[in-house]
């Protein structure tokens, strides 16, 4: 069979149609078997990297918010303890004042009682002394006048006399 050549510059319809089909087939093969797959893998990887970054950011934010939360709690605890101490101090102060004023009242009561006791004792002692003096005076007078006196009338007399003395003292 003789070898047949095309012309050097020739348009052969079967070559044109065949080349068109070849290009389309190759396009489809490259798109479907290489580009789509590689793009999918790259997208997956990018998504994962983005997700990792996002997770890290979230974790960081969480840590930060927790830190501020703890700081707030810590400072509020400090305030609370200061408050407690203050309250306790105030209460103690109140209690102290109470005790002191009670003690003062007690002491005043005791002093008053002691004063009135003393006064009463003094009165009793004075009365006793008056009685004794009047008795002595009566006995002196009995001895002096050697005569039984109307004790009641004279007693009155002597008491007046002693009362004058007592008032004078």
């Amino acid at each position, binding site marked *: 069979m003789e*070898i*047949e*050549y*095309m*012309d*050097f*510059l*020739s*348009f*052969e319809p*079967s*070559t*044109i149609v*065949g*080349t*068109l089909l*070849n*290009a389309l*087939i*190759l*396009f489809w*093969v*490259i*798109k479907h*078997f*290489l*580009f789509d*797959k*590689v*793009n999918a*893998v*790259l997208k*997956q*990887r990018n998504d*994962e990297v983005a997700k990792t970054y996002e997770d890290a950011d979230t974790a960081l934010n969480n840590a930060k918010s927790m830190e501020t939360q703890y700081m707030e709690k810590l400072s509020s605890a400090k305030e609370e303890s200061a408050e407690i101490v203050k309250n306790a101090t105030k209460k103690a102060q109140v209690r102290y004042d109470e005790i002191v004023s009670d003690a003062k009242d007690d002491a005043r009561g005791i002093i008053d009682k002691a004063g009135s006791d003393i006064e009463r004792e003094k009165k009793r002692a004075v009365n006793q002394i008056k009685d004794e003096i009047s008795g002595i005076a009566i006995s002196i007078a009995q001895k002096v006048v050697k005569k039984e006196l109307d004790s009641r009338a004279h007693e009155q007399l002597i008491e007046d006399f002693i009362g004058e003395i007592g008032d004078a003292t």
Partner: protein
Amino acid sequence: MDNFTINGPRVVFKFTVGDYTVRITETLFNSWIVLIIVSLLVIWLGSRLKKVPVTKKQAVAEMAVNFMNKLVDDNLGIGLRLYYAPYLAAVFILILAGSLLSLFGFRAVPSDVSFTGTLAIMTFFMILYNKIKYNGFGGYLKGLASPAVLTPFNILSEFATPVSMAMRLFGNLSGGAIITSLIYAALAGASAAVYGLIGIVADNYYFSFLQVGIPAVLSIYFDLFSGVIQSYVFIILTLAYIKNGKE
């Protein structure tokens, strides 16, 4: 020497459908080889991908995909990579692998104007689609007639774009092939002359020793370098025209 001819692609086989003869040329046949090899390579590259890359294979695949994605993002803006990136990759690899086939003694696929013309027409329609999509059909027509005097030139330049793209690729690759075969023929002649000088009668089956080594250097330029550069230029131009069409 005297029978040196420059041929188009060889017809590998042909069959008739009714009155019409379908010729399957070397170009189409070779691009099928490219299609099969590249498809297998691509399927292998895209298989068993892990979220955390452990294989070099995956690193290569990701690098290639990222490169194309970035190219599209940089030129066309974000959000268009879904279809443009694999399309440009397909065109790039088709041209590149097609020209690298010449390293293995096959005819370079892009040295057929039917092939480059088809790719250029695809690009042309893509540019047209983008122009109409972003400017509206009326806006597109208005753009063509914007300085009214230049309307014919504008229309001409619309069609000049795919023609220039097709011819650039075709000219570079087929030119390289022609130069390479010219050099081969010249070196064969030079070998024969050297044989004649030292008294050996050269027949058709002598060994052209000068053909060893020297063409390899040219092959590195015309097949490898030119193929890589031209396939890259093609997709960059496609991107640039589409970007231009969007504005």
